[in-house]
Each structure stands twice: as structure tokens, then as C-alpha cells.
């Protein structure tokens, strides 16, 4: 049924470099991996060649020299010191790092900066214009759309995207389309009210 023509094409790594020697009988060899020295694979000591690229962040052009491994999130936080964008999981599973890239909401932790040369990025720091809050920022305060505030930058950037996509027509719709942003404090009712309010004012 399924063709078997690519036996030689191994996807992913075949060796793990961490080892756990389990001693003693009765131990299940959960982690009995073949012993493999670090130096033997993947040339770990290899230097990275930095890459130079440009990025427009909140309207400001930056010419950056980065490690290709850096996510947009790490570039924002560690290179540009724009710490408003948060790292909640670094796994794409919480939404705290949401920013707009070329107008679309994405999770910046799973986005390699080196794939976005020339991109236009908007973060929470760029929403306020001349000391005036964006309507959604205002609505988050007015409707208690936050508690600890850690998920808030991601929620707001996601909310901006959600409204722009036309997915804020009803509270049910907002709940569905805002489900990529976890709020552990449970400020969801206020978040939904804030997005609905700002969408209505749009």
C-alpha cells in the first residue's frame, strides 16, 4: 500500500547526546540510550555565522546582526531590550509572545528572526501613539482585562489581530478567536469585554 522507497532518508536526528546510566536491577531502562560523546555529533563546538538583516519594529528601522537561531521574541527582548513582549512558554503554546508580523498575529517564540529580513513588526510598545492609548489598550484597563498583566501584551496584540481579521463580531466569536492566548489569572471575561468594546468602537 505505502511505498517504501526512502529507507535511507532519516528524518531528524538519530543520536541523542545526553545519556543516563541507570544502575541497579529493577530499574527500567527508560533512558538507556547508546553512549555517544558530545563531540562526535553535530559538531557542537561549531561557531555560528551571524546574519545581518533589517527589521522595522514599531515604525523604526533596525539593522541587526543576529545569531540565526534567535527567535523574533529573543531579538525583541534581548537584543532590542523591548521587553514588553513576554516569553511564557517558548513552545508556541501560550500566546504571551504574540506580535504582529506584516500585519498578522503570530507567536514570536517560534519565528526565526533570520527568516524575516525586511519584516514590519508591531509590538505592544508601539500601540500607544503620542501618549494616547490604542482603544484596545484603554478597553483592557476599563474592563479589567488583566490581573497580573503578564499575558496582557500578547492578549492585546492578539486582540488587535482578531479585530482586524473580522473575528470580533460576538462574544462567542471572540472567545473562539482569542483562544490562542492563555491567561492563568483567568481575566478572560474582561478580555472578551475589552475586545468586544474596542471592536465596536472601530
Amino acid at each position, binding site marked *: 500500500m505505502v511505498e517504501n522507497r526512502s529507507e535511507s532518508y532519516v528524518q531528524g536526528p538519530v543520536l541523542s*547526546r545526553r545519556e543516563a546510566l541507570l*544502575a*541497579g536491577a529493577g530499574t527500567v531502562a527508560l533512558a538507556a540510550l547508546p553512549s555517544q560523546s558530545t563531540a562526535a555529533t553535530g559538531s557542537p563546538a561549531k561557531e555560528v555565522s551571524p546574519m545581518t538583516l533589517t527589521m522595522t519594529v514599531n515604525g523604526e528601522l533596525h539593522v541587526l546582526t543576529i545569531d540565526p537561531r534567535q527567535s523574533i521574541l529573543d531579538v525583541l527582548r534581548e537584543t532590542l531590550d523591548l521587553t514588553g513582549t513576554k516569553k511564557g512558554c517558548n513552545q508556541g503554546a501560550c500566546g504571551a509572545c504574540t506580535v504582529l508580523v506584516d500585519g498578522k498575529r503570530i507567536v514570536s517564540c517560534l519565528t526565526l528572526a533570520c527568516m524575516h529580513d525586511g519584516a514590519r513588526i508591531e509590538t505592544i510598545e508601539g500601540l500607544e501613539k503620542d501618549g494616547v492609548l490604542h482603544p484596545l489598550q484603554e478597553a483592557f484597563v*476599563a474592563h*479589567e482585562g488583566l490581573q497580573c498583566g*503578564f499575558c496582557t501584551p500578547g492578549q492585546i496584540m492578539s486582540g488587535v489581530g482578531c479585530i482586524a481579521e473580522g473575528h470580533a463580531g460576538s462574544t462567542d466569536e471572540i472567545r473562539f478567536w482569542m*483562544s490562542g492566548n492563555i491567561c*492563568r489569572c*483567568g481575566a478572560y471575561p*474582561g478580555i472578551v469585554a475589552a475586545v468586544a468594546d474596542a471592536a465596536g468602537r472601530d
Partner: protein
Amino acid sequence: MTVSTIGNPMTRVDGRAKVTGRARYAADFNQPGQLYAVIVSATVGLGRITGIQAAEVERMPGVVALITHRNAEKLAYLPHKAGIDPATGERLHVLQDDTVRFYGQPVALVVADTLDHAERAATALRVTYEARPPLVDPMDPKAESIVPDTRGRVSPDRARGDADKAVAGAPVTLDATYEMARENHNPMEPHATIAAWSGDRLTLWSKSQYLVNEQAEIAAVFGMPVENIEVICPFIGGAFGTSLRTWPHVTLAALAARQVGKPVKLVLTRKQMFFTTGHRPRTLQRVALGATNDGKLTGVVHEGTGETSRYEQFMEALTAVTDYLYSCPNVRTQYRLTELDTGTPNHMRGPGEASGIFALESAMDELSYKLGIDPIELRRRNEPEKDEAENKPFSSRSLMQCYALGAERFGWARRTPEPRSMRDGRLLIGMGAATATYPAFHAPANARVRLLADGTVEVEAAASDMGPGTYTSMTQVAAETLGLPPERIRFRLGRSSYPQTPSHGGSWTMASVGSAIQAACIEAQAQVSRLATADSASPLYNVAAGELEWSDGRLRRRGETTGISYREIVAKAGAPIEADGSAQRDPEVAERYSMHSFGAVFAEVAVDPDVGTIRVRRIVGAYGIGRVVNPLLARSQCTGGMIGGMGMALMERTVLDSRDGRPVNAHMADYLMPVNLDIPELDAHFVDEVDPHVNALGVKGLGEIALVGTAPAIANAVFHATGTRVRSLPIHIEDVLTA
């Protein structure tokens, strides 16, 4: 007119900082020249480190230091125990020996110039172990329970009457066991510390709910003077208890910064958040109830066992609610611990009470069906007149009012008692209720108030705000007490050098810090009035203190309109007027009353009879929490707590692989917590309650009780919907599939 800010639904004073990204959390305090540290966690659950291939990693690009037990400096680890630390046992001494006590324990720290270099090197480090099978499952036959050594804090065994005999001889009995999964706090903000030394002074920008203890503990760990350490944490991205204690990563950051002579930033990965920073212990509980045919409790037995580590005895108030919640002459409660090869658990929102009440309130619900008595009526028939365990009156107790208000708002009357009797189309509908309660704690706290010549006021306390709105509510307390508009108050927290406060947990911040701020404000007013009445040029010269009144930022003689403003008095004084205040509960009052918050929680669920999905449709909670300082914040605390309770009821569970003790779902996508689409209509109400005894502000605290009753209300609703009683949390699809 007197400005009344307490009781106003004021929006957050720090709202703007939070919606603009300007609010800075620990990991946001990047320091010039900082290096990055990444922890290497043990990959065995018990054993000894036999080898560390350090040389290869030390040569890797960007690596500045590799710190392991072999080269880490020997730390002083002077004795230090805060109230938040377990009374028995000794904290983990990090990188001080080759012993691995649990899976994920830090075994090395890589410091490098960039995060990518540090992460790469940490992954590459090869550590070998001599491993033994750990014991992590409390159900394992090898697991033994012990009587906790409470060092006099609370007794693990309490009894009145003969409960076992009473249950055995009762006309109607119930005897059931309940289980609750291990949970992790999983705040959105991972633990983070940036450490920087300047000579022998250390600054820690560190996520902490207890700054002055973090300061004291690190001082003890390093054997250095407390004054040489400053802990800074103006914002906390949620914590729910996980940042009450100071965990090994704080020590590691400070150690690394000292070793490399540069500031070091250390942020835990989400996975590491499941290892060393505490968890809600898995609990096993037995509840046996005896009752008369008309529903009067004659005997209650509640035996609960929690888990702890091998090196510390973590205790929580698992069975405490059962001692005072209902009227019954025969009650026996018992608390035990199982020592396992895991990190030490710690307090998580509603610690003890939340788990204990799941068992008790499930059992009460079960009993109500056995008796054929409405569950709320059953609770009414057992409503006590006093705390029967302590033999003291309650300072206030509005449980029945909460049930009445909640039942009305929820529409409890529409509920038909039979399980599986309510439907909406194909869906099974269930309604359940449960009691919520939590002690109204109070701890000594201090605050400082500074009246400035420009008419504004600075207020300081080493408190924290992990989300409830401490910034705002304390501003309200100061504004109200000083008779000033809140815009004139600048409340600062999050620095260990500010006046000492207790930990930011246990729902006592409002009561404790609020009372201290109130006291400081009153002291400042006393100073102001002394100045104003002693000054012959003042219109209030020689006016007796009793004739003075404060409002609109002015001090005046009662009945008069002019008076003199703070601004003028301070200006005249030539320097800011500073006053310290402290507050603690009058021990005599504490001796006289039993002090608790109470509430009633109602939940409606819809269960899909085909595929078993459980969706919460509505939650209504009614609470008696004394005075409500800010209804907007209070409601948001409550709905947030309900959402936490939904997680506890239907989603959250940290699963350990018993072969090596690893948490298998240590991932944000695998440890489920409610998302926006899960959230139903949530409604929180407060009954009018005046409690003159708890503290001067009359507040009882809210953070914990908001979560406490939700899980049993949902579990009871699931039974009502399906007829299947699930006695273990979380309740997942498979638990109701065969319903």
C-alpha cells in the same frame, strides 16, 4: 465632602503600565553586560552523579562558566526558616553535593554570553549517574505514610466526641475516598532572577511573593548581612504560591554572578517550572459521614494524606475545614504525609482547603442524594452556631446568606433533583453546589507614608502584587484614610528595602498591608495635626485634636470649611513628613473569635452523552468576605478563581512517570488550563457583611476562597448531569464515558 475611595470600583492604577508593556517583570530588567545562565536538570529520579563531561562544554562557543557541584563554592546555608518554609527538614542545598534527590533537580549551570550559547551548551552537557528507582507514586505499596512533625504549628490529629463510633452507628452513612492530582502553579511568568554584585552588595531582580524573605534567605545561604542584599520585584506575572519560597535558581543566579563577576540572567524554562518550584501535592482522602434520616450529621471522619519530599515535610491545611464547617458532635480529622522522591511541594492557591473541601463537599453532596434532601437544605440543617472545634464564635459567618443569594441568582429552584433528569437537546445538564471557606488570616505588616510638599503622597511597603490589584487597593486605603483623591497617592511595592510585610499569599495582603498603611496614614495625620496646631501662625493653632477632621486634602476644625491643606503644612515644615505604621491583629481578639470567609458556589455543566465532553455553562458564587475594598477587582479575583477551579475540576494534572519520576506533561500544551473558549458566564456576588473583629479595615481576604469551592461544585454538577460520581480530580472525558 469626604472622598470615599474604599468601595469604589476604581480601575487599576497600574493598568496603563501593564497595557503598554512598561510594567517590568523580573526578566525584563536587562543589565548592561549581563550573561545568560541555563540550568541543567537531572535526568534521573534518584541517585548520584558519577561523571560530568565538563571540558567539552567549557570549550563551546560563548561559554563563560560551567558550574557544578565539583567547582561551585561551598555556600554557608546558615539556618533559615521563614513561616513559609516547612517546619521540619532542610531546604535543597543546590550544587553542594553529588546526590540527586528527584528528577529535574539542578545538577549544573551553564553561563554564556548569549542565551543561544547557554542553551546549546546546557543541552550538550553530558552527565552520568548511578541511578536508583525513585518512589513517586503514593499508591505504590512501598509508599508509607508518616505522621507529620508539625513542630507545634497545627495538630495532624484532631477529634471531638467519637466520630468513628458515631458514623458506624448512624442510620445513614457514607464512606468514600477521593483523590486529587498533583498540580503545578504554571503562572504565565516563568521564575526569573537577574543577579548583580557590586562589591559585597547583591541586587536581585527576582520574581518573588515574599521579598524580605528572599533577601533573608539568600543572606543565610551566602552567609552575608541581610542589608547587603536588595530584592526588587515591582510586578509578578502570576504566581499562585510558587514564588512564596525562594527556590534554588535564585541562589544559582547569585552564585553565577559572583563567580563570573558580571550580572547574570537566569530564567527557568517552562519545563523546569515543573521540577523545583513546588506543586500542589497529590492528595488521597477518605471522608466518612454519619447522619440521621432527617440529615443531621452525627459523625464526620476525614482522613487526608498529602505528599512531600524526602528532605522537607510540606504541610497544608488539608482537613482543617472539616473541623469547623458543619455542626456535628463527633468529628475526627487526621492528616498524614507520604514521603516521595520528588521536590518539595508548596502552597498553591487555596492550599489545603481547596483539596480538602473537594472531598468534604463531594461527600456532603453524596449524602444529600442518599437522604433525598436538597444539598443546600442539608447544609442548612448542619449550620453551626459557633466554631465547634475551637468552641468560639465566628467573627462573622454569612454562609446561609451566601447560599440564599447564590441560589436565587443561579436559579437553583429550577433544578430537578434526580440525576440525569435535566437536558438541553441531546446534552445532559447538571447543577451542583458547594461551600467555599478560607481562614481570614492576618500577619504583622509595616508601611511608610511620606507627605510631600507638592501635595502628593508616597506610600511604601515591601509587598507584592501578583495580580489581585495590591497597587490599586492600597492606593484606595491610603486615599481614603488621608482624605485625598487617589491620583495624589503613589503606592510603591516590590523592594525589600521598603518596610517589611508578610508573604503575598494566604489572602492576607489586603488585611495585613492594608491595615499597616492605614496605621501609617493615621500616624502621618497625627504628625500633621501636631504641626498645624503647634504653629502659632496656623489657623488651627491650639485646636484640640478631637476637633480636627480630614477631608479633601485639608485639615480643618469640625464644622468649618477652610482649614489648612497638607501641602501648606508640609511646605511649612520644610521637609516631607514621614510616618511609619504597623499593624497586627489584637491577640486577644484572635483568641476570642474564629475568623473565616465563607461562600457558596453554584455550577451548571453540560455533558455530551455521546463523547463525554464536559463544558461548564455557568458559575455563580456568593461570598461573605467582610468589606469589599474594590468591587471591580474583587469580582475579577472571584471569576479568576472560578477559572482556576475549573482547571482543577476538569483539566489540571501533572503526571509523573513512575519509572524515573519525570513529569511527562511538563509542557504548556500538555498541562491543560482553561482557554478563552472554555469560559462560561461567571457571576460573583458579595453579601453585605460587617466584621468589626478581623481587622480595622474589616476585610477578610479573597484570593483563595475564590478558587476553593469551585471544583466540588463542578464535580457535583457532573454527578447531577450524568449519575456518575467521579471521586478523583480532574474529571476527564473518559471518566464519564460510560455514563
